């Protein structure tokens, strides 16, 4: 057996009462791409943060090319040849590409020189980037590319990638994975954290699955199926549950229209240009319509205009009421983290809630109802009077959803309703949305994850450069390719 490029042996890490990692051993063979899978909170990111020196393990050793290393900070990690691409972009927005790379790699070069070095580096890596471009102005996929170039600029031979494809369209994700393959073919080694099982199966050399801080599966993709991976991620019982089909009765064609936009023209959130041109859309009661789009193609403005929180320049919006809007960013738009669960419930339900006569609020009634919803939706919270900041992301999202459904909405508009949630939590949210549709709500949903759109929608529309195209009805396998191409502008 060859010496692993990176080995984490017997790693244990405790956060308070919770063992985030329990005696985990992870070996990354040289020249390979290794997938690391698991639900949120399974310990994937913690394990990688330990390898990168951001978190110190309680016990365990780190070996790089067979020799034990003391990695106490990202600086140590970079010195040992380890680079990391984080889930969220870490570039300085007001710096150029070259400045960002120089900063990350610790170059002490003059600006002109680092620009040349970045140009040469990105060419060698086949990840072209304009060194003079401002990081802020890059598209999402170029930002991702910058993160990778930053990580590799300090001559890293080991690359840790924390969900780099989560924000990319299928074709872009594909291209990125090809580049990473190229890096491993040239002798580099990489770890890929992903939620997308098909990515792991199609592109990697080996797979490790974590569940609740323990390794539950190690193997090579050729011998594994999506089902095996899902079972290892969520446990065998839950996996069976996840596989159960969901038959939805299609909404009758004469059902009333719940959400209608007519010839909409909308301004972009980022600056004065138009984001949406001449878009018309109808969502019938009882129907789930999914919007597939690459980030920044006007879908955000469209959903917001239909939800009534973005101005309409031209055209008309008609929706049934009550309407619930589930915004993408739960901590700045959906919830106020410093306020309690009850207060957030009161915030979202406004003047029609049973605990208010429109002017006064009876907090005891609001607390009672919030406590009931916490139970009903399985939200794990220390109490309804505690700040929402104390909840995990999944539980925060459940609270947002519980609040949205509490209005008994006739129309629901949801942006990325399961972003950052693990498989089981996402499944629970999908079930709730389907149930709401069965109960007669018209639902319009956008997700950055195409698989989610394919899974949850009755009908899919694709948005490219501010215009809307109807795609075929959902047909899981064939649809994926077609829709993926449509998202990038192909007919």
């Amino acid at each position: 057996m060859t010496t692993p490029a990176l080995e984490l042996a017997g790693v244990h890490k405790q956060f308070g009462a919770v063992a985030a990692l329990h005696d985990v051993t992870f070996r990354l063979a040289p020249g390979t791409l290794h997938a690391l899978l698991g639900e949120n909170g399974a310990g994937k990111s913690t394990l990688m943060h330990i390898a990168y020196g951001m978190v110190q393990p309680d016990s365990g050793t780190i070996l790089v090319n067979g020799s034990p290393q003391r990695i106490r900070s990202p600086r140590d990690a970079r010195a040992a040849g380890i680079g990391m691409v984080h889930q969220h972009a870490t570039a300085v927005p007001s710096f150029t590409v070259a400045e960002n790379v120089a900063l990350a790699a610790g170059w002490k070069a003059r600006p002109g020189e680092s620009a040349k070095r970045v140009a040469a580096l990105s060419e060698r890596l086949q990840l072209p980037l304009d060194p003079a471009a401002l990081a802020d102005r890059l598209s999402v996929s170029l930002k991702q590319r910058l993160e990778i170039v930053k990580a590799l600029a300090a001559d890293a031979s080991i690359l840790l990638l924390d969900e780099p494809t989560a924000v990319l369209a299928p074709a872009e994700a594909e291209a990125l994975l090809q580049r990473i393959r190229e890096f491993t073919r040239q002798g580099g080694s990489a770890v890929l954290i992903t939620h997308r099982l098909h990515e792991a199966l199609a592109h990697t050399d080996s797979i490790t699955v974590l569940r609740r801080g323990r390794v539950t599966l190690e193997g090579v993709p050729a011998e594994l199926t999506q089902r095996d991976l899902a079972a290892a991620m969520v446990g065998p019982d839950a996996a069976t549950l996840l596989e159960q089909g969901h038959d939805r009765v299609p909404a009758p064609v004469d059902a009333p229209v719940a959400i209608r936009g007519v010839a909409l023209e909308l301004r972009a959130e980022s600056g004065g240009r138009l984001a949406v041109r001449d878009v018309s859309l109808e969502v019938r009661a009882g129907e789930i319509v999914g919007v597939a789009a690459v980030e920044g193609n006007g879908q955000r403005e469209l959903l917001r205009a239909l939800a009534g929180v973005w101005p309409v320049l031209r055209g008309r919006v008609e929706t049934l009421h009550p309407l619930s809007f589930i915004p993408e960013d739960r901590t700045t738009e959906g919830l106020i983290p410093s306020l309690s669960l009850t207060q957030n419930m009161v915030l979202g339900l406004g003047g029609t809630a049973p605990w208010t006569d429109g002017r006064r609020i009876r907090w005891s009634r609001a607390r009672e109802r919030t406590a009931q919803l916490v139970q009903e939706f399985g939200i794990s919270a220390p109490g309804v009077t505690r700040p929402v900041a104390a909840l995990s992301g999944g539980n925060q999202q459940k609270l947002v959803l519980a609040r949205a459904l509490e209005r008994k909405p006739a129309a629901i508009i949801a942006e990325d309703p399961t972003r950052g949630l693990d498989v089981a939590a996402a499944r629970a949210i999908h079930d709730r949305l389907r149930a709401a549709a069965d109960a007669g709500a018209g639902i319009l949903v956008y997700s950055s994850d195409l698989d989610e759109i394919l899974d949850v929608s009755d009908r899919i529309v694709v948005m490219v450069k501010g215009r809307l195209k109807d795609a075929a009805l959902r047909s899981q396998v064939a649809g994926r390719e077609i829709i993926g191409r449509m998202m990038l502008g192909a007919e």
Partner: protein
Amino acid sequence: MTADVGSIAAAFWDGAFGSWYAFTSATLVRATPLIIIGLGFALALRGGALNIGAEGQFYAGAIAATWVGLHAALLPSPVAIGAMWIAAAIAGAVWMLIPVILRLRYGVLEVISTLLLNFVAEALVSYMVQGPLQEPAHIYPQSASIASSGRLPLLPGTRLHLGFALAIAIALLLWWLFNRTRWGFELLAVGEGPRAARISGRIQVGRMIAVSLLASGAIAGIAGATEVGGVSYALYQNLSPGYGFTAIAVALLARLKPGWIIASGILFGALEAGAAGMQRDAGVPAVIVYVIEAAIIIGLVLVDARQRSLVTGRRSQVA
């Protein structure tokens, strides 16, 4: 100069709490404008707006109240007092109108505009007491005394005026607004998370901020009226020894809670009354009280920061 600590402390205590007279006439009289202005500050900050121009609004209110008070000789006392309060509230709100328009139309932060308007208000008072409102003999830079019908009734045997009761009433009103009404809650939401308030709460954020700022200015204006009607009976320069700023400390110490603002207002009133007694009886400069006030604020900020990190810091490491 030497003085033993015991006699300094005794002088301090006597000045603030030494007798019923000292407590009511020194401490509570000083506490009254601090409580009223502190309540106004808390109202604005609940919505996320920093009104540090209470000093200016206080003076605007004092000018308006003085003008009404000078012309109120023929009015029955309750009417005269009510007219002074209303005029002062309107003047305080009008003084706040400029920062509100600047904020909503042009995005100018009220921290800057309200602060700068303080200087304008001080200059305006200076002009008034040497011009239109100067006493008839034109000797002193102050107004004539207001009509006796405009003077606030006093608690018998003390100098404590009706303004203190008004301060308590405003505190009760704000307590009710903050804790029982939807408006008060929505104002909190605007302050804590304006984006979520707009998108998830469908709250008109700009309007909430405008209303809370105008009300904050009106309340500070009323403090100008109670000071003229209950203490000075006339307008002159430096009527406020920095009430508008000390009241910020009062409100922050009370964490913007109306009931606690009464308590912390009394505490700060006692500190200043005690400092005056200390200077008079023990020869210790009264400015020492600012050191104490500053120490209280710094201590409070530290405690606050510590508590915040306990709430949020715990989660920051968990992936």
